[in-house]
């Protein structure tokens, strides 16, 4: 379970405050969506939860299963179960996707005091997960994300999510840059991971993604805090009326 209380954040070395006393809870098994206009602080929220260093937390706390993660480095948060699917996944030239996946999985296992995966077991898991997402084996040998299309990069994020089996998944604008077919594949991949022990926080500007990943809860974010919370029908309402009533241009 993810609990965020009174989270107040500014950009490091600047005065600009982005999050203004944000409160949010995502229960195990819940799919929560955050919608909001550009500049409302959605992506910042995802980065702060994951532990990016460009921000300064002025007040508040972020608890994962009751434990405050704010004092933890990004890699420790990952090992504790936080996964962020990036809006713009980074390229790692020269590092085969397989190599990267194995390094990440084993790093997390070591951090949790578990044994490292044996290579045959690892390969079996990767192949099974890749097949489910329509990722061909040849792609796994290429350097991570280098020369991948937008859709391939997003699928690769979901593959990593599946392999790392986090308890809290954050998807930052996962639908951006995807055509309808790619969107469906990615959404199916996410839906396959829905589980009563796993929470999701789906950040999106458009309602389109939520037709495929149907949320339990929808939060509206504006000016750095949650201003309204409702069921999935709230997304449809926003689609019609836009964000104008929240004081910002859509």
């Amino acid at each position, binding site marked *: 379970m993810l609990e965020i209380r009174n989270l107040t954040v500014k950009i490091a070395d600047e005065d600009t405050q982005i999050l203004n006393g944000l409160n949010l809870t995502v229960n195990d098994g819940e799919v929560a969506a955050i919608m909001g206009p550009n500049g409302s602080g959605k992506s910042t929220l995802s980065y702060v939860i994951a532990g*990016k*260093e460009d921000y300064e937390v002025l007040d508040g706390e972020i608890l994962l299963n009751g434990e405050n993660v704010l004092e933890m*480095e990004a890699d420790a948060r990952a090992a504790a179960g936080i996964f962020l699917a990036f809006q713009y996944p980074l*390229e790692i030239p020269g590092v085969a996707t*397989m190599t990267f996946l*194995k390094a990440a999985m084993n*790093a997390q296992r070591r951090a949790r005091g578990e044994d490292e995966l044996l*290579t045959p077991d690892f390969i079996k898991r990767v192949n099974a997960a890749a097949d489910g997402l329509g990722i061909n084996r040849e792609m796994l040998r290429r350097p991570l994300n280098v020369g991948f299309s937008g859709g391939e990069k997003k699928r690769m994020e979901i593959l*990593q999510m599946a392999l790392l089996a986090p308890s809290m998944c954050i998807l930052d604008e996962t639908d951006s840059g995807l055509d309808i077919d790619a969107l469906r594949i990615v959404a199916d991949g996410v839906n396959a991971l829905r589980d009563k022990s796993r929470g999701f926080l789906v950040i999106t500007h458009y309602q389109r993604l939520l037709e495929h990943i149907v949320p339990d809860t929808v939060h509206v974010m504006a000016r750095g805090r949650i201003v309204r919370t409702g069921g999935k029908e709230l997304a449809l309402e926003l689609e019609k009326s836009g964000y104008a009533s929240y004081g910002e241009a859509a």
Partner: protein
Amino acid sequence: MAAVQETIDQVKSIDVTEYKYGFVTELEVDKPAKGLTEDTVRYISARKNEPAWMLEWRLDAFRRWKTMTEPTWSRVNYPPIDYQNIYYYAAPKMGAQPKSLDEVDPAILETYKKLGIPLREQEILAGVAPENRVAVDAVFDSVSVVTTFKKELAEAGVIFCSISEAIQEHPELVKKYLATVVPVTDNYFATLNSAVFTDGSFVYIPKGVRCPMELSTYFRINEQNTGQFERTLIIAEEGSYVSYLEGCTAPKRDENQLHAAVVELIALDDAEIKYSTVQNWFPGDAEGKGGIYNFVTKRGDCRGKNSKISWTQVETGSAITWKYPSCILRGDGSRGEFYSIAVSNGMQQVDSGTKMIHLGRNTTSKIIAKGIAAGKSDSTYRGMVSAHRKATGARNFTNCDSLLIGDQCGAHTIPYIEAKTATAIFEHEATTSKIGEDQLFYCQQRGLSEEEAVALIVNGFVKEVLQQLPMEFAVEAQKLITISLEGSVG
């Protein structure tokens, strides 16, 4: 994949803030007074029992050196070197040249053991397949203390010994080839080396022989205030093949020490020489105090048709590196290759690259240079590719990439390209990139620590070059790179 994991594990288990090879071996040492005069040259020659022609050759070089001035064109800064404040010869006291390992001072054997260089043949033989054996020439300060597997190599007709021994035992070969690739007056440091060179390796591969094992020389500077002037000569006769590797370390000392080497390679018709270097001289401390000045002239001559010389270097050490392993592509259809990884951290300065001089027809060359700069270091790639007017159909491909870690280091690329024939095709690619905060955050978000993330990204960057090294050295080199960059981020 396994190698990356191994790197990460190794880094974790090592106290990386320490230069691991920085210890000193206490020994009784035989050395002349400091400084350089004709008497010093005579002393060195006498200590080596050299024939008169060799002494004359040295004295001639010394007289020429006195008329020369130190070059200043490289992008490195250092205070003037006082050539009269250096010991030019230092040898562990051990009487005559030891005939076997049992006669070598145990302290020296212990040193090599600590460095991970096995010298006892029976230890190497245990559990190592014949094709994976490595013959070692161990050079300690100014002398070669031992050369292993000489008997096995001799059966194949291969001569592998110290250059001092070659001057005694094979003077005809030394006279025929010495200084035919790097002339005595080639440059200031090469001339100095010609006057005072102390030891190094000599390799001769006869016609049609494929050297049955890897050859390697391990250079160790131990004494204080001592320069090391290594001289290596490798000759590959028609249709032969040899792979050779050199490694270098030195103790941590507060003063700078000079290492001025000359390496000459000669490949005759259809011969191939593969020369690899893993250079890890003491780089100086974080403030730039101490460290080795590595001023080296390395050059290969593809003298025969369809001959091939390839240089692979992993440079992580030295306070200052000044070296340009080059190929003269004289034989028609000959090929030169240069693969380089230069890692600099702290206050290190690197000015390194290569020269590919195309003289013969249809000669080809390839340059892959990867520079990684961290800390406050400065790294320059300097490379020359030239085609003589008779070098029709000459081809070169150059790729030099720089990776910056942090914002206080510098990377520079200085290519010189000169084609005197319209049929030459030269390609040059260069990139400079930075390990981005975003890239690191992405890796950390997936569970990798900052060090693991840097190791992974750097290994990806240098992979192409590491693949050129013999397998066991590639793993070693990978570890070394990771360790050299420890603490470079954040």
